């Protein structure tokens, strides 16, 4: 049977879209990565015509037409085989446009959205996001609730967590400890204390893992550590009896893109099982930490002609198999060939957060940019503020927003304090109590005055060195 085409007529021009993936690509707000792939709409009119056509597509169509062939891709197989038809039932008769209207309505309560999550495929989430303005993405994401636990509780309403990211260009342990102390003293670290190592040398990974563990254990900090290395290295660390809390891996939305990371679903299964078996979480067993980002499959030559935002949503389809503690899009890291400027980065950050939350994931965002993109800190201020309004699960905390190892700009510990002040956002409750006990914050969560810092440094340094 031939694939039925999609179309929309504007005046005397009939815009035709050969298949679902073409329609999705043309309906995507403009971005450099889709232009690089040669799949973007050719004109502003074609873009909006595609949105009209997409609005009329029944959601059920996504269950019969895969954007990446089922036979050729294990991510597609995972999505289709794990689809929950009974969760899908309440929206089964809707079109993509109908889903948008339902999502922004009062009927889509937090409870209804949680129940719906396993019934939506990543492609459905991506499709509806393309029809939504930024305010819709914020409104609906804010209604989604995703709570995860390891040694604290992340994602409760009215909270924002921070990953403390104490990277050092040569993995110097004293330097990593110094950045960690700085972050803790500024009230950051409830999502995780997670370091990106400069090399994949196993002895160094082991040392990092031990130092972070010792700091957390000595001060009984209600948080979890993570050394963000390749999943195969983390499995190796577990085999060597290292104190691994969280397993990290970068993932993407196609089998080929994951292969370019040197990762398979079987490896993720093995790592997830191994970390859960350690039973190091005191409150829960969410042990996985994933990072994603639009453009990865294209950069790996494994995009199958599908737009980068739809493929990003498919990465969340991979992530949710593992009930992760944390998932974040690293939205501006990949560079201007995928997201050209501040406007594109901001839109992508809101889309990723919305899609992740709609699919039931604890989505955070590395609000960031590189020095070869047309973006600056004002753009980051805009995106982090919008994401805080949308209820983002966590952001990064990097000393002074300047990552001296990965060479990009993210958000600072101070940025998180700004968001707390403007939106009244609290930390993970167990971590917030610890900060109060330590005298780092007052009861209201505000950071202690500079005069008490020397004593706090001495107290924390005891175990960090």
């Amino acid at each position, binding site marked *: 049977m031939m694939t039925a085409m999609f179309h929309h007529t504007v005046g005397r021009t009939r815009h035709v879209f050969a298949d679902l993936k073409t329609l999705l690509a043309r309906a995507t707000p403009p971005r*450099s990565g889709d232009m*690089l792939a040669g799949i973007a709409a050719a004109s502003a009119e074609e873009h909006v015509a595609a949105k009209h056509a997409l609005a009329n597509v029944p959601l059920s169509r996504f269950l019969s037409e895969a954007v990446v062939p089922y036979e050729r891709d294990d991510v597609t197989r995972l999505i289709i085989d794990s689809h929950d038809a009974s969760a899908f039932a309440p929206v089964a008769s809707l079109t993509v446009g109908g889903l948008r209207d339902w999502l922004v309505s009062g009927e889509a309560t937090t409870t209804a959205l949680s129940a719906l999550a396993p019934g939506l495929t990543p492609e459905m989430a991506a499709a509806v996001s393309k029809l939504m303005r930024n305010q819709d993405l914020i409104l609906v994401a804010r209604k989604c609730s995703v709570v995860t636990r390891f040694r604290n509780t992340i994602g409760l309403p009215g909270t924002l967590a921070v990953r403390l990211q*104490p990277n*050092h*260009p*040569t993995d*110097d342990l*004293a*330097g990593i*400890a*110094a*950045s960690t102390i*700085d972050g803790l*003293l500024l009230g950051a670290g409830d999502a995780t204390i997670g370091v990106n190592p*400069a*090399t*994949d*040398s*196993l*002895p*160094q990974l082991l040392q990092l893992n031990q130092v972070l563990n010792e700091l957390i254990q000595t001060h009984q900090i209600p948080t979890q550590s993570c050394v963000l290395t390749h999943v*195969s290295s983390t499995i*190796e660390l577990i085999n*060597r*009896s290292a104190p691994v809390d969280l397993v990290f891996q970068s993932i993407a939305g196609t089998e080929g893109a994951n*292969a*370019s*990371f*040197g990762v398979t679903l079987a490896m993720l299964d093995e790592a997830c099982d191994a970390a859960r078996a350690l039973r190091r979480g005191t409150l829960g067993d969410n042990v996985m930490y994933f990072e994603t980002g639009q453009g990865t499959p294209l950069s*790996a*030559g494994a995009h199958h002609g599908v737009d980068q935002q739809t493929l990003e949503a498919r990465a969340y389809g991979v992530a949710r198999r593992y009930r992760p503690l944390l998932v974040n899009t690293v939205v501006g890291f990949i*560079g*201007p*060939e995928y997201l*050209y400027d501040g406007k594109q980065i901001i839109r992508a950050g809101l889309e990723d957060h919305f899609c992740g939350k709609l699919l039931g994931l604890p989505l955070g965002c590395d609000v960031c940019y*590189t*020095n*070869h993109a047309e973006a*600056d*800190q004002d753009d980051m201020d805009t995106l982090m503020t919008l994401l805080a309004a949308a209820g983002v699960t966590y952001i990064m905390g990097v*000393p*002074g927003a*300047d*990552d*001296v190892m*990965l*060479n*990009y*700009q993210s958000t*600072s510990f*101070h940025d998180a*304090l700004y968001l707390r*002040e403007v939106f009244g956002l609290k930390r993970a409750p167990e971590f917030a109590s610890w900060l109060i006990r330590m005298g780092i914050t007052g009861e209201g969560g*505000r950071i202690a*005055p*500079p005069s008490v*810092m020397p004593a*706090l*440094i*001495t107290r924390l340094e005891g175990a960090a060195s």
Partner: protein
Amino acid sequence: MSKVPGAPDRWSALKATTPARIGLPRAGQGLALSEVLAFQLAHAKARDAVHAALDVEVIARALGPDVLLASSAAPSRDTYLRRPDLGRHPDEATALALSDAAGDPVDLVIIIADGLSATAVQAHAAPLALRIADLARAACLSLAPFVIATQARVALGDHIALLLKARAVLMLIGERPGLSAVDSLGAYFTHATKPGVSTDADRNCVSNIKDGGLPLEDAASRLLWLITEARRRGASGVALKDESGLAPLLPG
């Protein structure tokens, strides 16, 4: 109003351990204006480094007589930034010149490429390339001439290796400038490289080679370990962990 949080001496000991921006002066819970402006100046310098051009003649002189030049298919910096695909392929003149220059098959080709920071390459690439070449020859490996590549991405090295009949490729390339580091060099090693087939998973990377980062001598010995170990095992990338400094296993 701006105050250093904590007595300066407590922070100065910590600050000595890292180039990270820690212990910053605050205004309220936010940053003091002095820090905001310092950040903006660093960002301005990094933006300038991205757009600087590599001085090929200076590098070529440092490397000696045995040098070939290569250009990617990206004709300008602007195109290079928007079209990474073009940066991964040689232009026609390069393809012709390199296949003319190819001799017998060799074990390794070392490429110096501008990447995203000509500043980094200008500062560190030639001495590192010479050092690795010495180490490689001492390990009885045969080498192609050095190649200097402009408007280059990592995968351009796969094509250059094929054209020069090299079994493995080491590319020294300017990393994306950060605020504290506009001169950071990366080294990507790929064994049995194949254009269009080799992916990031087939490569090993040693990064942050710069003053105050990974010292040149350490980088050279790590890379030589990767090169010789990949030959022994017949693979590079995730199949080959960097165990060059592997200490004994955990006690117990």
